[in-house]
């Protein structure tokens, strides 16, 4: 049995970036999952009750937040690269069933 060990190295190499990514992703889910935060009629924004306004505005904000995550994940990449390439090169023989 194989254990996933090697890919952790990129997280270890960039602890701050990894932590920021984790925080953004957790926050992105939390702030919509935790309904009591926004299940209110007031303050109304224009004609929109707060509940509906919040969910509508959430989406463009989410798009930007996830774009930041994708950009940050790029920074993680250089470290595992030689590693991955080396293993990938060794792959062809691995499907010994």
């Amino acid at each position, binding site marked *: 049995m194989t254990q996933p060990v090697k*890919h952790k190295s990129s997280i270890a190499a960039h602890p701050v970036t990894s932590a920021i990514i984790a925080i953004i992703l957790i926050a992105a889910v939390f702030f919509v999952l935790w*309904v009591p935060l926004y299940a209110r*009629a007031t303050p109304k924004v224009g004609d929109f009750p707060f509940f509906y306004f919040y969910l509508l505005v959430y989406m463009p904000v989410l798009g930007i937040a996830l774009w930041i995550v994708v950009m940050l994940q790029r920074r993680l990449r250089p470290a595992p690269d030689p590693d991955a390439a080396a293993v990938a090169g060794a792959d062809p023989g691995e499907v010994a069933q």
Partner: protein
Amino acid sequence: MSHVNYVTFTIVLVLFLVVTLVGFAAARWRRAEDMMHLNEWGLGGRGFGTFVSWFLLGGDLYTAYTFIAVPAAVFGAGAVTGFFAVSYTIMVFPIVLIFLPRLWSVARAHNYITPADFVRGRYGSRGLSLAVAFTGILALMPYIALQLVGIQAVLTVMGVGTTSTNTFLKDLPLIIAFLVLAVFTYVSGLRAPALIAFIKDTLVYLVIIVAIFYIPTRIGGWGHIFAAGQAHLKAISPTTHKPNGVFIPISGNSQLAFSTLALGSALALFCYPHAVTGVLSTKSRDVIKRNMSLLPLYSVMLAFIALLGYAALADKTTAAHVKKAGNAQLAVPYLFQHLFPSWFVGVAFAAIVIGALVPAAIMSIAAANLFTRNIFREFFKPDASPQLQTRMSRWVSLVIKLGALLFAIELHPSFSIDLQLLGGIWILQTFPSLVSGLFTRWFHRWALLAGWLGGMVFGTIAAYKVATPTTSHWAGSVDIEFGHTVYIGLAAVILNIAISLVLTVILNATRVPSGADETLPDQYTADPAAAPAPVPAAPGLGLGAPGAAGDQNLGMT
């Protein structure tokens, strides 16, 4: 055809013909050297970039059911069972960003085409792979049928084909539309829906933008629309003696139902085989990641479509039409028909019809791939050549669509919707096998299988028992489980995971063989854009991918 508006009808017909031509022409788009390979027919050559994938995934995930059923639910019951869809399409992207890139990488390394292929390779278990494939096909059938129900809703409002009492004649337009879809999918494979998705999304965006700005001016502004929604939902229903629905989930019960429905649906979405098909057709990890940040743009659109449910309540004529027909699915088509000039009604209806055809095509391809790869090849013909697999998939896609057509014509629409609810609960039961497998091999294959079975049985029974004063069974997908008002699918998957955990501990302690794992840790993070894709060696046994050599470079052309 007495009440048919011929301007509307002509525009729908012309746009449908355009789509048909594009569907057939798609076979020549990004033409591959060897079309008779599942990577080509079933995954469009695995070479779609960010732009194409955005349309393809959008076309895949936001179906006619979204355009018809979500506003219908908002029209009928408001926030909890309707507008939760907005919360769900928000949640889904940060969640899947965590695991989809891993699935893509390992699938590229081993040439997996279906989610069941991955489970087979990861756990070395034919049983578990069969369970995943079976659930996928089972959940997709009613989903395809629902696309047809969406088309039917539009045709009904258009007044096409409703005068005859003969079932066949009555549904002739639907049958013709579907046969055309079936044939161009057979010919062009995934390329057809990918290309048609451009037309679909252009039309849908056009219609929605116009609707957002134009409809409120006709019926007294957003303030009036929300007020009408709130008034309807507060009113006491004469049949249930309870309020019609929830405008803003303030009580603890409604909040829990809202968030569990959203979370459960978000977890389920990318377990659907057609969503996986869309993801695996992309050319790199980055394409998927970028799309996860770009797809929320669709959710903005979805939110406004959902609010059209309230707009339909605010427009007296539409509300009266829908009540008379007794079918909330007609809310949006009637709203468009009443408020738009007839030529634009044609554009809007065409958008919905095409919006149904695109996902129906992808779903039938996904279901066909599951059957071919994980049932036919696995159990009946292990040495099936790529050509045979592709031929098989093509035919199966036809059979599946015909099955869905029968479903839609013969059964009452509400039955398809019930099955769709069940489909969501069922597909969620494949989540533990699929997603845990992407991160750890700790779970035992038989424990996962037992958990799946437990979740399926519990979920089905629990959904069967949901009753309202008007319906005795299958009345919804939210009920009181373990003392809380929650989405049944989420309750079932928690049970599923609990069973898997306990049995894994027992099976590992008693050293029951856990099966071979053909994947390597680094294959979950590999990115051929950075590191060349490994060419899988043809395995000694026929169980692997015969003819796999050469598969890898097809995506590069």
